[in-house]
């Protein structure tokens, strides 16, 4: 309960500060839209030269992309920890975080939230509906529940991976240059994993399970029965990933020695 009330208080403070700088907010929205546009253009241009991607049509790939944007937006809004090392470890800010009455990870989530990224989720829904209309997909009432579950699962998969990466900085003080590249790898979960060879498919499913943020859950809505098992695994993967990462984080915090001044 306490966590909830703190969360909403931080949220309302955040909205207030953001509304002070409206042009900035506008530019950020615009650059987010551009980011989503770049990927969509890639898909459109590629399908200008081919009909099928290993049996998947253009609209199906677009649907996966739209789905991907929803958990990704949630992740980007609340787990903005890609620069954790520079921001908290190098500058010694972690000391301050540890004195706060809430869990250190939760405190960082609060401080670093970027609610404007949620707009990406709306873009995603629009893209999805467009693709669904083109594909004449039909949905049952319980698909809504599954959608929510899959989105949350995907969000926690993403969060788990990035929290684990951030936790590494408790052990090594190298700068976190792998983080931006990780964002790139995340993109490959958006394409049907059967196009990759065994190694990469394995990596995307079990090591860096980005496929659970894109193709696996979407396969359910696209009625690709052969992937159903993986689709339903999405929430489980989310819980597992997130739990492991929090355990790793806690172990890291125990090891943490203040740096900076």
């Amino acid at each position, binding site marked *: 309960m306490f966590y909830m009330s703190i969360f909403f208080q931080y949220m309302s403070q955040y909205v207030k500060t953001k509304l002070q700088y409206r042009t900035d907010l506008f*530019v950020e929205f*615009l*650059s987010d839209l551009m980011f989503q546009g770049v990927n969509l253009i890639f898909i459109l241009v590629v399908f200008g030269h081919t009909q099928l991607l290993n049996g998947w049509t253009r609209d199906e790939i677009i649907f996966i992309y739209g789905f991907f944007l929803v958990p990704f937006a949630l992740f980007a809004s609340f787990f903005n920890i890609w620069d954790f090392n520079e921001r908290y470890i190098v500058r010694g800010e972690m000391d301050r975080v540890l004195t706060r009455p809430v869990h250190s990870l939760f405190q960082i989530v609060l401080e670093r939230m970027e609610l404007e990224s949620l707009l990406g989720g709306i873009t995603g829904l629009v893209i999805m509906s467009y693709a669904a209309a083109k594909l004449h997909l039909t949905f049952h009432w319980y698909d809504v529940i599954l959608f929510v579950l899959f989105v949350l699962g995907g969000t926690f998969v993403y969060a788990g991976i990035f929290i684990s990466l951030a936790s590494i900085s408790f052990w090594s003080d190298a700068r976190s240059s792998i983080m931006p590249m990780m964002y790139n790898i995340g993109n490959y979960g958006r394409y049907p994993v059967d196009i990759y*060879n065994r190694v990469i498919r394995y990596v995307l499913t079990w090591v860096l399970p980005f496929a659970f943020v894109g193709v696996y859950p979407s396969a359910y809505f696209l009625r690709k029965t052969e992937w159903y098992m993986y689709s339903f695994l999405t929430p489980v993967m989310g819980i597992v990933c997130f739990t492991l990462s929090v355990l790793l984080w806690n172990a890291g915090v125990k090891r943490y020695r203040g740096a900076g001044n």
Partner: protein
Amino acid sequence: MGKYIEMIRMRFLMMLAYRTNYYSGIFIYSINIGAYYFLWSAIYGGQPSIQGMTVEQMTTYVAIAWMARAFYFNNIDREIAMEIREGKVAIELIRPYNYLVMKTMQGLGEGIFRLFFFSLPGMLIVTFVFSLQFTTNAHTWAYFVLSTILSFIINSQLNLLAGMVTFFTLNGEGLLRAKRFIIDLFSGLILPISFYPEWAQDVMKYLPFQAISYIPSMIFTESFTENEAVRGMMFQAVWCIVLIVPIYLLWKAAKRKLIIQGG
């Protein structure tokens, strides 16, 4: 001149201190290129060639484009923006060197470091794992080297321009991000320019972006004829010179406009 070479050396040594972190980077880059490799193989499906490029040329294109990016890529736009925000730029301006040249040299030091500790070992791994086509034609290699140097210059010039714009806007985070997406898309890094629809290609002919990634990569994969390669490099060279004008003007205006925020 000596002081600028010293700048390159300093930045190189600074990067060297953080080298461990690049070994993991190579691994991630290799996965990245690997995934692209299969993505493109799937896109080609059974087709022998698209827009005059075979699937081998395409995968080599992707690999070389990403490896070359490690060389030309730098964050000097962000550094300039940060130095303005923190007021450090005031001190930089009274030092006896040209601030912009100094920034470019730092970028070059970073690029050279990544070339030796990142691109070359990375390329070695990637060639072992995937069937990439490397030409043995010395001409192509010479053209490629020259063209990559030009692409470094153009990319740095664009970064300087973007960084200087933050002199006027004070908070340019969104702008710098937008610039990055534009460069990813229009430089030919994720898609060769020849894949775009005609009208888009016509527009891009008048923009400098394809000089960054498309031209060197096309030269390397020999998707360009010798004639096209020379014309491509001319295109790059012209942009290198043309871009000096807005940099010069903006720099003059920026110095006049500069407000030091703290320091």
